[in-house]
Protein backbone atom coordinates (compact mmCIF):
# COMPACT_ATOMS: atom_id res chain seq x y z
CA UNK A 1 0.00 0.00 0.00
CA UNK A 2 1.11 3.53 -0.75
CA UNK A 3 2.76 4.85 2.47
CA UNK A 4 1.05 8.24 2.30
CA UNK A 5 -2.32 6.60 1.90
CA UNK A 6 -1.51 4.13 4.67
CA UNK A 7 -0.83 6.99 7.03
CA UNK A 8 -3.82 9.05 5.84
CA UNK A 9 -6.77 6.71 5.68
CA UNK A 10 -7.40 6.47 9.46
CA UNK A 11 -7.41 10.26 9.56
CA UNK A 12 -9.89 10.54 6.68
CA UNK A 13 -12.04 8.02 8.47
CA UNK A 14 -12.05 10.21 11.58
CA UNK A 15 -12.96 13.28 9.56
CA UNK A 16 -15.69 11.48 7.62
CA UNK A 17 -18.64 11.70 10.08
CA UNK A 18 -18.05 15.42 10.60
CA UNK A 19 -17.66 15.98 6.88
CA UNK A 20 -20.89 14.11 6.26
CA UNK A 21 -22.62 16.42 8.74
CA UNK A 22 -21.39 19.52 6.94
CA UNK A 23 -22.38 18.18 3.53
CA UNK A 24 -25.82 16.90 4.50
CA UNK A 25 -26.95 19.52 6.99
CA UNK A 26 -25.11 22.59 5.74
CA UNK A 27 -24.40 22.23 2.02
CA UNK A 28 -27.52 20.37 0.89
CA UNK A 29 -29.75 23.11 2.40
CA UNK A 30 -27.68 25.63 0.44
CA UNK A 31 -28.62 23.65 -2.67
CA UNK A 32 -32.19 23.77 -1.39
CA UNK A 33 -32.09 27.53 -1.93
CA UNK A 34 -33.14 26.86 -5.56
CA UNK A 35 -36.62 26.74 -4.02
CA UNK A 36 -36.46 30.53 -4.10
CA UNK A 37 -36.94 30.21 -7.86
CA UNK A 38 -39.59 27.49 -7.71
CA UNK A 39 -43.17 27.12 -6.65
CA UNK A 40 -42.71 24.40 -4.05
CA UNK A 41 -45.27 21.69 -4.05
CA UNK A 42 -44.82 19.05 -1.33
CA UNK A 43 -46.09 16.27 -3.59
CA UNK A 44 -43.71 16.99 -6.46
CA UNK A 45 -40.75 17.60 -4.12
CA UNK A 46 -37.63 19.67 -4.78
CA UNK A 47 -37.01 18.66 -8.38
CA UNK A 48 -40.60 18.23 -9.55
CA UNK A 49 -41.86 21.66 -8.53
CA UNK A 50 -42.21 24.14 -11.40
CA UNK A 51 -39.74 26.98 -11.95
CA UNK A 52 -41.08 30.49 -11.47
CA UNK A 53 -37.93 32.52 -12.14
CA UNK A 54 -37.76 35.72 -10.14
CA UNK A 55 -41.48 35.85 -9.30
CA UNK A 56 -40.88 35.43 -5.57
CA UNK A 57 -38.32 38.23 -5.58
CA UNK A 58 -40.63 40.47 -7.54
CA UNK A 59 -43.32 39.86 -4.94
CA UNK A 60 -40.76 40.33 -2.15
CA UNK A 61 -39.62 43.76 -3.22
CA UNK A 62 -43.10 45.03 -4.05
CA UNK A 63 -44.66 43.82 -0.80
CA UNK A 64 -44.88 46.32 2.02
CA UNK A 65 -44.10 43.62 4.62
CA UNK A 66 -40.59 43.34 3.25
CA UNK A 67 -39.80 47.00 3.80
CA UNK A 68 -41.22 46.89 7.32
CA UNK A 69 -39.05 43.87 8.09
CA UNK A 70 -35.98 45.52 6.62
CA UNK A 71 -36.64 48.68 8.62
CA UNK A 72 -37.18 46.72 11.85
CA UNK A 73 -33.94 44.80 11.27
CA UNK A 74 -31.97 47.99 10.77
CA UNK A 75 -33.61 49.76 13.71
CA UNK A 76 -32.93 46.87 16.12
CA UNK A 77 -29.37 46.47 14.84
CA UNK A 78 -28.90 50.21 15.17
CA UNK A 79 -30.09 50.07 18.77
CA UNK A 80 -27.54 47.35 19.47
CA UNK A 81 -24.76 49.24 17.69
CA UNK A 82 -25.27 52.60 19.30
CA UNK A 83 -26.80 51.84 22.68
CA UNK A 84 -25.62 48.34 23.58
CA UNK A 85 -22.15 48.36 22.04
CA UNK A 86 -20.57 51.06 24.28
CA UNK A 87 -21.79 49.47 27.52
CA UNK A 88 -19.35 46.53 27.75
CA UNK A 89 -16.53 48.94 26.91
CA UNK A 90 -17.49 51.28 29.75
CA UNK A 91 -17.95 48.29 32.00
CA UNK A 92 -14.48 46.96 31.18
CA UNK A 93 -12.94 50.35 31.93
CA UNK A 94 -14.75 50.50 35.27
CA UNK A 95 -13.59 47.01 36.19
CA UNK A 96 -10.07 47.89 35.17
CA UNK A 97 -10.11 50.73 37.69
CA UNK A 98 -11.10 48.44 40.57
CA UNK A 99 -8.04 47.85 42.72
CA UNK A 100 -9.56 45.36 45.16
CA UNK A 101 -9.26 41.90 43.57
CA UNK A 102 -12.21 40.39 45.44
CA UNK A 103 -14.58 43.18 44.35
CA UNK A 104 -13.50 42.72 40.79
CA UNK A 105 -13.96 38.97 40.99
CA UNK A 106 -17.37 39.31 42.60
CA UNK A 107 -18.64 41.76 39.99
CA UNK A 108 -17.28 39.68 37.13
CA UNK A 109 -18.81 36.50 38.51
CA UNK A 110 -22.21 38.17 38.76
CA UNK A 111 -22.31 39.85 35.39
CA UNK A 112 -21.21 36.76 33.42
CA UNK A 113 -24.03 34.57 34.77
CA UNK A 114 -26.90 35.80 32.55
CA UNK A 115 -24.95 34.90 29.42
CA UNK A 116 -25.44 31.22 30.23
CA UNK A 117 -29.15 31.52 30.89
CA UNK A 118 -31.45 30.68 27.99
CA UNK A 119 -33.52 33.29 26.16
CA UNK A 120 -36.61 31.40 27.27
CA UNK A 121 -35.68 32.01 30.89
CA UNK A 122 -34.91 35.67 30.16
CA UNK A 123 -38.28 35.98 28.42
CA UNK A 124 -39.86 34.24 31.41
CA UNK A 125 -38.32 36.72 33.82
CA UNK A 126 -39.47 39.54 31.54
CA UNK A 127 -43.05 38.31 31.49
CA UNK A 128 -43.15 37.85 35.25
CA UNK A 129 -41.75 41.33 35.81
CA UNK A 130 -43.64 43.27 33.15
CA UNK A 131 -47.02 41.55 32.84
CA UNK A 132 -49.92 43.99 33.00
CA UNK A 133 -51.92 42.33 35.76
CA UNK A 134 -49.59 40.57 38.16
CA UNK A 135 -46.20 41.77 36.93
CA UNK A 136 -43.85 43.16 39.56
CA UNK A 137 -43.34 46.49 37.82
CA UNK A 138 -47.05 47.10 37.35
CA UNK A 139 -47.73 46.18 40.96
CA UNK A 140 -45.19 48.81 41.91
CA UNK A 141 -46.85 51.38 39.62
CA UNK A 142 -50.31 50.57 40.95
CA UNK A 143 -49.07 50.96 44.51
CA UNK A 144 -47.92 54.47 43.73
CA UNK A 145 -51.23 55.35 42.17
CA UNK A 146 -49.97 55.27 38.58
CA UNK A 147 -51.66 53.74 35.56
CA UNK A 148 -50.77 50.15 34.72
CA UNK A 149 -48.76 49.93 31.50
CA UNK A 150 -49.08 47.39 28.69
CA UNK A 151 -45.31 46.89 28.66
CA UNK A 152 -45.33 43.57 26.84
CA UNK A 153 -47.89 44.30 24.14
CA UNK A 154 -47.65 48.04 23.42
CA UNK A 155 -45.33 48.40 20.39
CA UNK A 156 -43.84 51.60 21.78
CA UNK A 157 -42.06 49.71 24.57
CA UNK A 158 -40.75 46.89 22.42
CA UNK A 159 -37.40 48.43 21.49
CA UNK A 160 -36.61 49.49 25.06
CA UNK A 161 -37.45 45.99 26.27
CA UNK A 162 -35.26 44.48 23.56
CA UNK A 163 -32.33 46.70 24.56
CA UNK A 164 -32.79 46.12 28.29
CA UNK A 165 -32.84 42.34 27.82
CA UNK A 166 -29.69 42.55 25.74
CA UNK A 167 -27.90 44.66 28.30
CA UNK A 168 -28.96 42.41 31.12
CA UNK A 169 -27.93 39.20 29.40
CA UNK A 170 -24.83 40.12 27.42
CA UNK A 171 -23.29 43.20 29.03
CA UNK A 172 -20.99 41.14 31.25
CA UNK A 173 -19.93 38.64 28.64
CA UNK A 174 -19.19 41.45 26.22
CA UNK A 175 -16.57 42.90 28.59
CA UNK A 176 -14.30 39.85 28.27
CA UNK A 177 -12.67 40.84 25.03
CA UNK A 178 -12.06 44.41 26.20
CA UNK A 179 -10.73 43.24 29.58
CA UNK A 180 -8.33 40.92 27.77
CA UNK A 181 -7.16 43.88 25.73
CA UNK A 182 -6.66 45.99 28.86
CA UNK A 183 -4.80 43.17 30.61
CA UNK A 184 -2.23 43.17 27.85
CA UNK A 185 -1.27 46.81 28.48
CA UNK A 186 2.27 47.07 29.85
CA UNK A 187 1.94 48.01 33.58
CA UNK A 188 5.19 49.93 33.16
CA UNK A 189 3.23 52.56 31.23
CA UNK A 190 1.06 53.29 34.24
CA UNK A 191 4.07 53.38 36.55
CA UNK A 192 5.93 55.75 34.26
CA UNK A 193 2.86 57.99 34.03
CA UNK A 194 2.52 57.94 37.81
CA UNK A 195 6.16 58.90 38.26
CA UNK A 196 5.62 61.74 35.80
CA UNK A 197 2.81 62.96 38.04
CA UNK A 198 -0.17 61.87 35.94
CA UNK A 199 -3.26 61.35 38.10
CA UNK A 200 -5.87 58.73 37.60
CA UNK A 201 -7.90 60.66 35.04
CA UNK A 202 -4.86 61.41 32.93
CA UNK A 203 -3.78 57.77 33.09
CA UNK A 204 -7.27 56.79 31.97
CA UNK A 205 -7.26 59.35 29.18
CA UNK A 206 -3.72 58.79 27.93
CA UNK A 207 -3.13 55.08 28.52
CA UNK A 208 -6.34 53.09 29.09
CA UNK A 209 -8.50 54.64 26.39
CA UNK A 210 -5.87 54.67 23.62
CA UNK A 211 -5.04 51.03 24.37
CA UNK A 212 -8.67 50.12 23.68
CA UNK A 213 -8.99 52.08 20.48
CA UNK A 214 -7.95 49.37 18.04
CA UNK A 215 -10.09 46.60 19.50
CA UNK A 216 -13.08 48.92 19.79
CA UNK A 217 -12.89 49.94 16.15
CA UNK A 218 -12.38 46.35 15.04
CA UNK A 219 -15.31 45.09 17.10
CA UNK A 220 -17.52 47.89 15.81
CA UNK A 221 -16.67 47.11 12.20
CA UNK A 222 -17.28 43.40 12.79
CA UNK A 223 -20.67 44.23 14.31
CA UNK A 224 -21.52 46.31 11.26
CA UNK A 225 -21.00 43.17 9.21
CA UNK A 226 -23.68 41.41 11.25
CA UNK A 227 -26.49 43.93 11.01
CA UNK A 228 -28.76 41.44 9.25
CA UNK A 229 -28.68 39.17 12.33
CA UNK A 230 -30.67 40.51 15.24
CA UNK A 231 -31.06 37.71 17.74
CA UNK A 232 -33.89 35.62 16.36
CA UNK A 233 -34.71 33.72 19.56
CA UNK A 234 -34.85 36.84 21.66
CA UNK A 235 -37.17 38.65 19.26
CA UNK A 236 -39.33 35.60 18.63
CA UNK A 237 -39.93 35.25 22.37
CA UNK A 238 -40.77 38.94 22.82
CA UNK A 239 -43.05 38.99 19.82
CA UNK A 240 -46.83 38.90 19.90
CA UNK A 241 -49.59 39.77 17.49
CA UNK A 242 -49.84 43.30 18.90
CA UNK A 243 -46.21 44.38 18.46
CA UNK A 244 -45.56 42.77 15.04
CA UNK A 245 -45.24 46.18 13.38
CA UNK A 246 -41.96 46.82 15.21
CA UNK A 247 -40.84 43.29 16.10
CA UNK A 248 -41.13 41.40 12.82
CA UNK A 249 -37.73 40.52 11.34
CA UNK A 250 -36.64 38.15 8.55
CA UNK A 251 -36.46 34.92 10.54
CA UNK A 252 -39.69 35.45 12.44
CA UNK A 253 -41.52 36.19 9.18
CA UNK A 254 -39.98 33.13 7.53
CA UNK A 255 -41.01 30.90 10.44
CA UNK A 256 -44.55 32.22 10.54
CA UNK A 257 -45.28 32.22 6.83
CA UNK A 258 -43.00 29.39 5.77
CA UNK A 259 -43.08 26.69 8.42
CA UNK A 260 -46.50 27.53 9.82
CA UNK A 261 -48.37 28.56 6.66
CA UNK A 262 -46.48 26.54 4.07
CA UNK A 263 -45.31 29.39 1.80
CA UNK A 264 -42.02 27.62 1.25
CA UNK A 265 -40.93 29.16 -2.05
CA UNK A 266 -41.55 32.76 -1.11
CA UNK A 267 -39.99 32.52 2.35
CA UNK A 268 -36.95 30.71 0.94
CA UNK A 269 -36.50 33.69 -1.39
CA UNK A 270 -36.64 35.95 1.64
CA UNK A 271 -34.10 33.76 3.46
CA UNK A 272 -31.83 33.81 0.42
CA UNK A 273 -32.00 37.60 0.27
CA UNK A 274 -31.02 37.80 3.92
CA UNK A 275 -28.19 35.26 3.61
CA UNK A 276 -26.69 36.90 0.52
CA UNK A 277 -26.85 40.44 1.88
CA UNK A 278 -25.46 39.12 5.16
CA UNK A 279 -22.59 37.41 3.36
CA UNK A 280 -21.67 40.50 1.37
CA UNK A 281 -21.78 42.74 4.46
CA UNK A 282 -19.78 40.26 6.52
CA UNK A 283 -17.04 39.85 3.92
CA UNK A 284 -16.81 43.58 3.27
CA UNK A 285 -16.61 44.60 6.90
CA UNK A 286 -14.34 41.69 7.91
CA UNK A 287 -11.88 42.77 5.24
CA UNK A 288 -12.12 46.34 6.50
CA UNK A 289 -11.57 45.20 10.09
CA UNK A 290 -8.55 43.15 9.07
CA UNK A 291 -7.06 46.06 7.22
CA UNK A 292 -7.63 48.32 10.17
CA UNK A 293 -6.24 45.70 12.56
CA UNK A 294 -3.00 45.49 10.62
CA UNK A 295 -2.62 49.24 10.45
CA UNK A 296 -3.64 49.73 14.04
CA UNK A 297 -1.59 47.00 15.63
CA UNK A 298 1.61 46.99 13.65
Amino acid at each position, binding site marked *: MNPVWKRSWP*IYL*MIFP*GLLFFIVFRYIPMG*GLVLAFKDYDPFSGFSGSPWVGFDHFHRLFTQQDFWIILRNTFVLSGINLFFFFPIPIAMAILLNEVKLPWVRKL*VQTTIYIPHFVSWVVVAGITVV*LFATQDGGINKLLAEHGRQRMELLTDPSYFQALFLTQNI*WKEMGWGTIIFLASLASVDPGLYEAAYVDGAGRWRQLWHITLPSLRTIVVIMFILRLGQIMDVGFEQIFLLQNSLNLSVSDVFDTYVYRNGVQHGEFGFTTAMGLFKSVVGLVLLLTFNRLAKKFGEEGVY
Partner: protein
Amino acid sequence: MGKKFNLVADGILYLILLLIVLFIALPFSYILFSSFSTNAEYYSRGFYILPHKWTINAYGYLAMNENFMQAYRNTFVLTACGTAISLGFTLFMAYGLSKRWLRGRRLLNMLVLFTMIFHGGMIPTYLLVSELHLLNSYWSIYLTGAIFPFLLIIMRSFFASFPPELEEAARMDGCGELQLLLRIVLPLSIPSVVTIALMYGVAHWNSYFQAILYLNDSAKWPIQSFLRQFLLDSDTGMLRSVGSYEYGPPVKMAAVIVTALPLLLCYPFLQKYFNKGMLVGSIKG
Protein backbone atom coordinates in the same frame (compact mmCIF):
# COMPACT_ATOMS: atom_id res chain seq x y z
CA MET B 1 -5.83 66.41 48.28
CA GLY B 2 -4.92 63.54 46.00
CA LYS B 3 -6.11 61.03 48.52
CA LYS B 4 -9.47 62.72 48.97
CA PHE B 5 -9.98 62.83 45.22
CA ASN B 6 -9.38 59.10 45.09
CA LEU B 7 -11.89 58.54 47.84
CA VAL B 8 -14.57 60.34 45.84
CA ALA B 9 -13.63 58.66 42.57
CA ASP B 10 -13.49 55.22 44.17
CA GLY B 11 -16.74 55.86 45.99
CA ILE B 12 -18.51 56.66 42.72
CA LEU B 13 -16.86 53.69 41.03
CA TYR B 14 -18.00 51.22 43.66
CA LEU B 15 -21.47 52.75 43.74
CA ILE B 16 -21.86 52.28 39.98
CA LEU B 17 -20.64 48.70 40.24
CA LEU B 18 -23.08 48.04 43.06
CA LEU B 19 -25.94 49.35 40.93
CA ILE B 20 -24.88 47.13 38.05
CA VAL B 21 -24.71 44.06 40.28
CA LEU B 22 -28.18 44.92 41.61
CA PHE B 23 -29.50 45.36 38.07
CA ILE B 24 -28.34 41.82 37.28
CA ALA B 25 -29.28 40.22 40.58
CA LEU B 26 -32.65 41.83 41.40
CA PRO B 27 -34.75 40.22 38.66
CA PHE B 28 -33.32 36.83 39.66
CA SER B 29 -34.00 37.46 43.34
CA TYR B 30 -37.51 38.72 42.69
CA ILE B 31 -38.39 35.52 40.86
CA LEU B 32 -36.61 33.29 43.35
CA PHE B 33 -38.28 34.77 46.44
CA SER B 34 -41.71 35.14 44.82
CA SER B 35 -41.65 31.45 43.93
CA PHE B 36 -41.87 30.75 47.67
CA SER B 37 -44.93 33.02 48.07
CA THR B 38 -48.43 31.86 48.75
CA ASN B 39 -50.99 32.64 46.02
CA ALA B 40 -53.02 34.73 48.45
CA GLU B 41 -50.12 36.96 49.38
CA TYR B 42 -49.04 37.33 45.75
CA TYR B 43 -52.48 38.54 44.70
CA SER B 44 -53.31 40.71 47.69
CA ARG B 45 -50.03 42.33 48.60
CA GLY B 46 -48.42 44.96 46.38
CA PHE B 47 -44.84 44.79 45.19
CA TYR B 48 -42.48 42.94 47.46
CA ILE B 49 -39.24 40.99 47.30
CA LEU B 50 -39.40 38.91 50.49
CA PRO B 51 -42.69 37.14 51.21
CA HIS B 52 -44.13 37.22 54.72
CA LYS B 53 -45.26 33.65 54.50
CA TRP B 54 -43.04 31.04 52.85
CA THR B 55 -44.28 27.89 51.14
CA ILE B 56 -42.92 25.25 48.77
CA ASN B 57 -46.36 24.80 47.22
CA ALA B 58 -45.11 25.94 43.78
CA TYR B 59 -42.30 23.39 43.73
CA GLY B 60 -44.65 20.68 44.92
CA TYR B 61 -47.05 21.54 42.07
CA LEU B 62 -44.24 21.24 39.52
CA ALA B 63 -42.98 17.96 40.98
CA MET B 64 -46.49 16.51 40.74
CA ASN B 65 -47.15 17.94 37.28
CA GLU B 66 -46.46 15.02 34.96
CA ASN B 67 -46.06 17.23 31.84
CA PHE B 68 -43.45 19.41 33.48
CA MET B 69 -41.48 16.46 34.82
CA GLN B 70 -41.66 14.75 31.43
CA ALA B 71 -40.21 17.83 29.72
CA TYR B 72 -37.52 18.06 32.35
CA ARG B 73 -36.51 14.44 31.80
CA ASN B 74 -36.55 15.02 28.03
CA THR B 75 -34.06 17.83 28.46
CA PHE B 76 -31.70 15.62 30.44
CA VAL B 77 -31.82 13.01 27.67
CA LEU B 78 -31.39 15.60 24.93
CA THR B 79 -28.51 17.30 26.71
CA ALA B 80 -26.66 14.09 27.54
CA CYS B 81 -27.04 12.47 24.12
CA GLY B 82 -26.67 15.72 22.18
CA THR B 83 -23.46 16.63 23.97
CA ALA B 84 -22.01 13.14 23.55
CA ILE B 85 -22.80 13.12 19.82
CA SER B 86 -21.51 16.65 19.26
CA LEU B 87 -18.35 15.91 21.19
CA GLY B 88 -17.65 12.73 19.22
CA PHE B 89 -18.14 14.42 15.83
CA THR B 90 -16.13 17.46 16.88
CA LEU B 91 -13.15 15.72 18.48
CA PHE B 92 -12.57 13.27 15.65
CA MET B 93 -12.91 15.86 12.94
CA ALA B 94 -10.80 18.41 14.81
CA TYR B 95 -8.06 15.86 15.37
CA GLY B 96 -8.08 14.92 11.71
CA LEU B 97 -7.94 18.51 10.55
CA SER B 98 -5.05 19.26 12.92
CA LYS B 99 -2.70 17.09 10.82
CA ARG B 100 -0.66 19.49 8.75
CA TRP B 101 0.51 16.83 6.34
CA LEU B 102 -3.01 15.74 5.43
CA ARG B 103 -3.90 16.16 1.77
CA GLY B 104 -7.04 18.18 1.18
CA ARG B 105 -6.80 19.79 4.61
CA ARG B 106 -7.09 23.31 3.23
CA LEU B 107 -10.16 22.44 1.22
CA LEU B 108 -11.80 20.81 4.25
CA ASN B 109 -11.03 23.85 6.39
CA MET B 110 -12.54 26.14 3.76
CA LEU B 111 -15.61 23.94 3.64
CA VAL B 112 -16.05 24.37 7.39
CA LEU B 113 -15.33 28.10 7.41
CA PHE B 114 -17.78 28.85 4.63
CA THR B 115 -20.65 27.44 6.68
CA MET B 116 -19.90 30.09 9.30
CA ILE B 117 -20.65 32.92 6.90
CA PHE B 118 -23.35 31.49 4.66
CA HIS B 119 -26.21 29.14 5.32
CA GLY B 120 -29.22 27.73 3.51
CA GLY B 121 -31.62 29.13 6.05
CA MET B 122 -34.57 27.82 7.97
CA ILE B 123 -36.85 26.56 5.20
CA PRO B 124 -34.42 24.40 3.17
CA THR B 125 -33.09 22.85 6.40
CA TYR B 126 -36.62 22.22 7.63
CA LEU B 127 -37.63 20.58 4.34
CA LEU B 128 -34.47 18.46 4.39
CA VAL B 129 -35.22 17.22 7.91
CA SER B 130 -38.74 16.49 6.75
CA GLU B 131 -37.58 14.55 3.66
CA LEU B 132 -35.17 12.51 5.80
CA HIS B 133 -38.18 11.56 7.96
CA LEU B 134 -36.47 13.00 11.01
CA LEU B 135 -39.39 15.25 12.02
CA ASN B 136 -40.61 14.38 15.49
CA SER B 137 -37.42 12.45 16.21
CA TYR B 138 -34.65 13.62 18.54
CA TRP B 139 -32.21 12.85 15.76
CA SER B 140 -33.41 16.03 14.02
CA ILE B 141 -31.99 17.97 16.98
CA TYR B 142 -28.86 15.88 17.47
CA LEU B 143 -27.89 16.01 13.81
CA THR B 144 -28.85 19.48 12.58
CA GLY B 145 -26.64 21.09 15.21
CA ALA B 146 -24.04 18.34 15.60
CA ILE B 147 -20.95 20.51 15.11
CA PHE B 148 -20.43 24.16 16.02
CA PRO B 149 -17.71 25.26 13.57
CA PHE B 150 -16.39 27.71 16.13
CA LEU B 151 -15.76 24.99 18.73
CA LEU B 152 -14.37 22.69 16.03
CA ILE B 153 -11.78 25.31 15.12
CA ILE B 154 -10.81 25.90 18.76
CA MET B 155 -10.28 22.19 19.23
CA ARG B 156 -8.37 21.88 15.97
CA SER B 157 -5.99 24.68 16.97
CA PHE B 158 -5.48 23.01 20.31
CA PHE B 159 -4.64 19.62 18.76
CA ALA B 160 -2.34 21.34 16.28
CA SER B 161 -0.30 22.70 19.18
CA PHE B 162 0.96 19.21 20.04
CA PRO B 163 4.53 18.68 18.78
CA PRO B 164 4.80 16.43 15.70
CA GLU B 165 7.50 14.44 17.54
CA LEU B 166 4.75 13.01 19.74
CA GLU B 167 3.09 11.48 16.72
CA GLU B 168 6.35 10.14 15.31
CA ALA B 169 7.37 8.61 18.62
CA ALA B 170 3.99 6.96 18.94
CA ARG B 171 4.21 5.57 15.43
CA MET B 172 7.69 4.17 16.12
CA ASP B 173 6.16 2.28 19.00
CA GLY B 174 3.60 0.84 16.62
CA CYS B 175 0.75 2.95 17.87
CA GLY B 176 -2.03 3.60 15.34
CA GLU B 177 -3.75 6.94 14.84
CA LEU B 178 -6.82 5.96 16.79
CA GLN B 179 -4.75 4.72 19.71
CA LEU B 180 -2.64 7.85 19.55
CA LEU B 181 -5.77 9.98 19.83
CA LEU B 182 -7.51 7.95 22.52
CA ARG B 183 -4.52 6.97 24.66
CA ILE B 184 -2.18 9.92 24.37
CA VAL B 185 -3.70 13.06 22.87
CA LEU B 186 -7.12 13.06 24.58
CA PRO B 187 -5.80 12.38 28.11
CA LEU B 188 -3.46 15.35 27.61
CA SER B 189 -6.35 17.54 26.42
CA ILE B 190 -8.83 17.04 29.24
CA PRO B 191 -9.29 20.72 30.16
CA SER B 192 -10.00 21.66 26.53
CA VAL B 193 -12.32 18.73 26.01
CA VAL B 194 -14.22 19.63 29.18
CA THR B 195 -14.53 23.24 28.02
CA ILE B 196 -15.93 22.17 24.66
CA ALA B 197 -18.27 19.67 26.34
CA LEU B 198 -19.56 22.36 28.70
CA MET B 199 -20.17 24.73 25.78
CA TYR B 200 -22.15 22.06 23.92
CA GLY B 201 -23.94 21.10 27.13
CA VAL B 202 -25.07 24.66 27.78
CA ALA B 203 -26.24 25.04 24.18
CA HIS B 204 -28.22 21.79 24.32
CA TRP B 205 -29.74 22.60 27.69
CA ASN B 206 -30.80 26.02 26.45
CA SER B 207 -32.01 24.95 23.02
CA TYR B 208 -35.71 25.47 22.46
CA PHE B 209 -36.45 26.67 18.95
CA GLN B 210 -35.27 23.52 17.22
CA ALA B 211 -37.70 21.51 19.32
CA ILE B 212 -40.58 23.80 18.36
CA LEU B 213 -39.52 23.58 14.72
CA TYR B 214 -38.90 19.84 14.44
CA LEU B 215 -40.95 18.14 17.16
CA ASN B 216 -44.70 18.24 16.54
CA ASP B 217 -45.46 16.07 19.52
CA SER B 218 -45.25 18.37 22.52
CA ALA B 219 -44.80 15.37 24.85
CA LYS B 220 -41.30 15.16 23.40
CA TRP B 221 -40.50 18.82 24.06
CA PRO B 222 -37.56 19.81 26.22
CA ILE B 223 -38.09 21.99 29.26
CA GLN B 224 -37.27 25.25 27.44
CA SER B 225 -40.04 24.80 24.88
CA PHE B 226 -42.40 23.60 27.57
CA LEU B 227 -41.60 26.60 29.78
CA ARG B 228 -42.36 29.04 26.98
CA GLN B 229 -45.75 27.44 26.42
CA PHE B 230 -46.33 27.24 30.16
CA LEU B 231 -45.73 30.98 30.56
CA LEU B 232 -47.74 31.92 27.46
CA ASP B 233 -50.84 29.94 28.38
CA SER B 234 -51.88 32.42 30.99
CA ASP B 235 -53.68 30.15 33.41
CA THR B 236 -55.66 28.33 30.73
CA GLY B 237 -55.16 24.64 30.37
CA MET B 238 -53.41 24.27 33.69
CA LEU B 239 -54.90 22.08 36.35
CA ARG B 240 -56.15 24.19 39.25
CA SER B 241 -54.47 21.85 41.65
CA VAL B 242 -52.48 18.65 41.69
CA GLY B 243 -52.90 16.69 44.90
CA SER B 244 -52.79 19.28 47.62
CA TYR B 245 -50.74 21.74 45.54
CA GLU B 246 -52.37 24.77 43.93
CA TYR B 247 -51.62 26.53 40.67
CA GLY B 248 -50.83 30.26 40.71
CA PRO B 249 -48.23 32.87 39.70
CA PRO B 250 -45.56 31.48 42.06
CA VAL B 251 -45.70 28.24 40.06
CA LYS B 252 -44.56 30.16 36.98
CA MET B 253 -41.68 31.68 38.94
CA ALA B 254 -40.70 28.27 40.26
CA ALA B 255 -40.75 26.87 36.71
CA VAL B 256 -38.33 29.59 35.57
CA ILE B 257 -36.04 28.90 38.54
CA VAL B 258 -36.04 25.14 38.05
CA THR B 259 -35.28 25.57 34.34
CA ALA B 260 -32.29 27.80 35.04
CA LEU B 261 -31.09 25.90 38.10
CA PRO B 262 -28.82 23.22 36.57
CA LEU B 263 -26.93 25.91 34.68
CA LEU B 264 -26.51 28.01 37.78
CA LEU B 265 -25.17 24.95 39.58
CA CYS B 266 -22.73 24.28 36.72
CA TYR B 267 -21.66 27.90 36.60
CA PRO B 268 -18.62 27.54 38.91
CA PHE B 269 -17.22 24.88 36.55
CA LEU B 270 -17.99 26.98 33.52
CA GLN B 271 -16.24 29.92 35.07
CA LYS B 272 -13.23 27.85 36.00
CA TYR B 273 -12.79 26.81 32.40
CA PHE B 274 -13.53 29.98 30.51
CA ASN B 275 -11.34 31.87 32.93
CA LYS B 276 -8.40 29.88 31.67
CA GLY B 277 -8.55 32.17 28.70
CA MET B 278 -8.68 29.53 26.03
CA LEU B 279 -11.94 30.77 24.62
CA VAL B 280 -10.94 34.40 24.90
CA GLY B 281 -7.69 33.71 23.11
CA SER B 282 -9.52 32.05 20.30
CA ILE B 283 -12.05 34.85 20.00
CA LYS B 284 -9.23 37.32 19.67
CA GLY B 285 -7.17 35.17 17.32
